[in-house]
């Protein structure tokens, strides 16, 4: 070994690096601690706790959003006398909102047997509490609405009774449409009003994204179920147009370190891939009249971006530097609210 051999030089380099930087990271060597920690915050540990939610939550966001907005489509169909479309839309709303959503939500609880405690109190300052009540109200409207509509469609009862059923169906369907819009959008508030930087920094975008993705998903699913009508195609264009605008907004509206989970981490790519699928790609496919492909693209995109948003929350919540950087922004929100 000569003093100038590459292996000796490498050792010189390591000594130099140790002296200058205080640590020498390497494969299989963790220099978490001393002599002086150089990770941000307290040994690089999370300042806020990342969400404990698992796969059920993004699936719930997907089905809940689709079900809620499907009830809106059912109302539009009732008004314009598309009774068959209204029936299908109400089935989607009922299965998604009164069956799948509660099951997924209960599965995600740490203690599923205590799920009824969700309705112990009504707290307008808790988006989780509001969500539980919105979902309950939606279920309470969508099930009788569907039953009345089906009884009417099959002409089970004669004359006046059928007329009453038709009016009842219309009232319950309009009711489920109102709660449905809230069911599809409150989930954005739910994660937007938290201590997770990547979420609260985009609390305005999230309800628009979740609600519009719900509307587009409902239209897309109904098209796939055979209802190829111009009204649903219009809604497909509308939803994809809004999602495209949101993709652009999200790409421009950067907050540096504070929301770097979205712009630098893999889970952020899930959001963007999802938004491309249910934004620009869905528009292009619709322009070429490839409606079923546009519908599938939109549904996939809506699901993927929601998974992305939950994963981004986990990454962002584990990043102490994001929390510190986001505080500047949070403080200005507080002083603004306080001044009023």
């Amino acid at each position, binding site marked *: 070994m000569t003093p100038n051999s590459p292996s000796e030089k490498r050792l010189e380099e390591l000594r130099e690096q140790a*002296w200058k930087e205080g640590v020498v990271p390497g494969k299989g060597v963790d220099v*978490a*601690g*001393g*002599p*002086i*920690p150089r990770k941000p*915050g307290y*040994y690089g*540990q*999370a*300042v*806020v*706790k990342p969400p*404990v*939610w698992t796969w059920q939550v993004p699936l719930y966001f997907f089905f809940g959003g689709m079900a809620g*907005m499907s009830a*809106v489509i059912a109302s*539009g169909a009732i008004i314009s006398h598309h009774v068959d479309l209204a029936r299908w839309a109400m089935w989607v709303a009922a299965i998604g909102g009164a069956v799948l959503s509660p099951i997924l939500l209960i599965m995600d*609880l*740490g*203690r599923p047997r*205590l*799920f009824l*405690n*969700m309705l112990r109190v009504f*707290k307008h*300052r*808790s*988006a989780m509490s509001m969500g539980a009540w919105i979902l309950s109200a939606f279920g309470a409207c969508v099930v009788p609405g569907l039953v009345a509509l089906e009884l009417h469609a099959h002409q089970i009862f004669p004359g006046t009774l059928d007329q009453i059923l038709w009016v009842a169906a219309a009232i319950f369907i309009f009711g489920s449409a109102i709660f449905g*819009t809230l069911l*599809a*959008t409150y989930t*954005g*508030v739910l*994660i937007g*009003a*938290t*201590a997770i930087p990547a979420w*609260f920094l985009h*609390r305005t975008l999230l*309800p*628009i994204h979740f*609600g*519009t993705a719900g*509307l587009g998903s409902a239209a897309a699913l109904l098209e796939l179920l055979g209802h190829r*009508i*111009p009204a649903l*195609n*219009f*809604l497909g264009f*509308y939803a994809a147009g809004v999602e495209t605008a949101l993709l652009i907004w999200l790409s421009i509206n950067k907050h540096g370190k504070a929301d770097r989970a979205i712009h630098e981490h893999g889970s952020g790519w899930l959001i963007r891939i999802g938004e491309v699928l249910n934004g620009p790609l869905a528009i292009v496919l619709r322009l070429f009249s490839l409606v079923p492909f546009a519908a599938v693209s939109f549904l996939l995109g809506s699901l993927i971006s929601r998974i992305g948003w939950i994963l981004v929350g986990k990454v962002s919540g584990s990043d*102490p530097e994001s929390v*510190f950087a986001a*505080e500047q922004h*949070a*403080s200005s*929100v*507080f002083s603004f*609210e306080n001044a009023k």
Partner: protein
Amino acid sequence: MIGEGIQSTNQRKHSYVQDRVEVGFFTDPSVCIGCKACEVACKEWNQVPDDGFTWSGNSYDNTGHLGASTWRHVMFLEQDRPKGNQVTGPMGLDPQSEDPFRWVFLSDVCKHCEEAGCLEACPTGSIVRTEVGSVLVQNDVCNGCGYCVVSCPFGVIDRRPEPLLDAGGAFKCTFCYDRQKSGLVPACAKVCPTESIVFGRLDDLRARGAARVQQLQQSGYNDAQLYDPTETSVRGIHAFFLILGEPEAYGLPPKPQIPTIYLKSAWTSAFATAIASIIATLVGFAFFS
């Protein structure tokens, strides 16, 4: 026994719960010796389960962070700054260099916020405010939805994973509410040998904290300060700290905010989206049928 002995507020019986007096913890790292008696007392009294052991490599801290099964956590900071009037000398290759070093211990705990994010977020009403101003999770009511976890600006509360005792529920420091109801002092404060953790009336503790900061600054601890974010939407904490240096180094957010301040803009956006969706649907069926 350091301090006032059996006359100390850490030792004598009290009736704060019956008298509805606001109480607090004042935790002072300048006298903490890092013995972890508070951690052990907390786990033993509250029967908090063993959540495993890993060598962290982070100084003498193998506890890691506060969580569902860790309600007191002694932090061990190693900083290249002088401690008080510590004499530092040259070290290493440069004879002119100063090489200050200090080891700081601080026992972290739930802050029991004046405006508590977890309490506001809880959809079951499991989390309540007690007579003494502390924030308490009622274990038998909590259904483990996990919303408090992302609503705490300090990352204190967490959901306890399987297979630990009472898994699935959210847990954090109870401020030993059960002990306080019987006139006893919280376990961590009771066992603290140097009164680094002091329990008592909140107004008394705030005065004590301010005096201690002044005393330390006169003794050369130029970066001693109180950590009590009263100027943010949290509006102050009932378990407050004296810290040396910046709060970030302790994993404490300098300006914590309660997430409810974001509700207004988020709901506005939600309602706008709801209305826009209804209009788009009506337009669709009116003009494209």
